[in-house]
């Protein structure tokens, strides 16, 4: 009897231990990932004196609204940097850039994938491989010469310059190509019999079927566009075109002059909020987008 009880207790304990470990680990993980954000969020509600002194607060302070208002409207008091850019302007720039890149990439990739899948013409495979090769080389690797091309084309300091070069995405094209290949032949035959040409088929069949893929890809690409760093850093020195991710880092000086930590923290929150919201609200599409594009 004692042996049985010991066994029962042991098995029960084992199961419980496993569950406790799971909850503890996941809970700890969530905390570790939330902590930096929490500290920044809290910091953004205190005044610059508190922060500058090193009085690190763990809970909210009363200065939140004014900090954000300041960051939003002027980008700081300018005590340190004389080129403060209002966060409102930077947010608009980032949003525009992200939306243009996402929309542009999706549109162009749809067209290319459609051409490669639903037609046969000499050079088809060549075109496909040319596009495919771009996977091998992220923009960072060819950054200097690409920048020079932009200078030659007088596209620096322009929204076009920020967005257009990033629109030729092989991953999106591959994804759509793969998807189009799964559209049954019967759909095309039926459309032909109904007298529909390729453009009509695209508009009435291929496109509507692609909507979920487009949504998934949009989440990924929006984040990709919003989080661009090296490219805007090089392309833009006109501060009116500053994106918030780059602008944020420029607010932090390396010199002796005091940083306006409160404004910086507020700006940091503003910089990460939109993409995080997009991910959280569109989580299912986001995950789908990730797992689909890596196939």
């Amino acid at each position, binding site marked *: 009897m004692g042996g049985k009880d010991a066994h029962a207790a042991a098995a029960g304990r084992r199961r419980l231990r496993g569950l406790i470990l799971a909850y503890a680990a996941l809970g700890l993980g969530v905390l570790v*990932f939330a902590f930096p954000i929490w500290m920044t969020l809290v910091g953004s509600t205190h005044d610059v004196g508190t922060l*500058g002194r090193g009085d690190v607060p763990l809970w909210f302070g009363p200065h939140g609204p004014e900090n954000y208002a300041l960051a939003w409207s002027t980008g700081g008091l300018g005590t340190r940097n004389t080129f403060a850019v209002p966060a409102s302007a930077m947010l608009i720039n980032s949003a525009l850039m992200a939306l243009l890149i996402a929309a542009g990439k999706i549109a162009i990739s749809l067209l290319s994938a459609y051409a*490669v899948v639903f037609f046969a013409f000499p050079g088809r495979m060549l075109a496909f491989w040319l596009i495919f090769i771009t996977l091998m080389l992220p923009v960072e690797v060819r950054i200097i010469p690409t920048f020079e091309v932009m200078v030659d084309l007088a596209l620096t300091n322009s929204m076009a310059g920020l967005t257009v070069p990033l629109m030729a995405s092989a991953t999106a094209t591959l994804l759509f190509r793969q998807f189009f290949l799964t559209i049954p032949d019967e759909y095309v035959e039926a459309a032909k019999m109904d007298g529909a040409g390729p453009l009509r088929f695209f508009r009435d069949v291929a496109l509507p079927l692609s909507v979920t893929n487009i949504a998934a890809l949009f989440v990924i690409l929006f984040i990709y566009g919003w989080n661009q760093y*090296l490219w805007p850093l090089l392309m833009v020195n006109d501060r009116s075109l500053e994106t918030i991710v780059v602008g944020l880092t420029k607010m*932090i000086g390396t010199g002796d002059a005091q940083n306006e930590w409160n404004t910086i923290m507020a700006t940091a929150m503003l910089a990460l909020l939109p993409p995080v919201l997009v991910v959280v609200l569109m989580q299912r599409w986001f995950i789908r987008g990730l797992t689909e594009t890596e196939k």
Partner: protein
Amino acid sequence: MRKKVIFPGVALPAALLLPQLLITGIFFFWPAGQAVWSSFLREDAFGLSREFVWFENFAAVLTDPNYLTVVRNTAVFSLSVSVLAMGVALFLAVQADKAIRGATAFKTLLIWPYAVAPAVAAVLWLFLFHPQIGIFGRMLNGAGIAWDYKINGGQAMTLVIVAAAWKQVSYNFIFFLAGLQSIPRNVLEAAAIDGARPVRRFWTIVFPLISPTTFFLLVVNLVYAFFDTFGVIHALTQGGPGLATTTLIYKVYVDGVQNLNFGASAAQSVILMLLVIVMTGLQFRFIERRVHY
């Protein structure tokens, strides 16, 4: 692979392909070609004269002791980031796979760091570890450890690694979780009946079965550490102190934009290009070869 039923015509598909090919041509192939060409030239800072110097730039770069330091930094950095980000992600994915209540809530809470830009992540961690205003920075200094990543190279590297890995865990977590959930439950039950306890089950059954995912993520993480972390370094340490946190991509930037040494920068770009081709090539080999059970 091609569809059997297609539309006739050549002009239309050509037109459809034009935007992508145009952009690819102008902003990809042309600059890439320029980079390769530049790497064989030596130009003065004003662009007034240029000289074809064959592989001299490459030789100069590869024998530059700074470059070798940077190569070592990059190796340390990328391996550390990959191992850290993958290890933590795998551990969390295993816990999340246990089908506990609230698993979806945990999932949401662990996924969002992916959306944070690397540079912004760096700024967040800067707040935590700044020697004067950061909660951990002050704690460390208070405890007698001289903490200032602006002057201590090892501390700078550590901080940069943590900031970069922090962001990448979400991505790995998603893929590991998917990989774990694709293992048929029956197979694990069979192992349990065969006498395998949870730890043994993990190492003899689960880990081998997610190895395609693991390899894939390793390449992705390495590429991330090589390139996407530019923002982290630039925001946090600007490659310093000295060269302590300069990676290959950061050096390309420094040499090209700050030092205006285009030949050296181009040569480094070409070397990086070759590296990436090898890495992505490997990645595709593995994806193609992904064992289908």
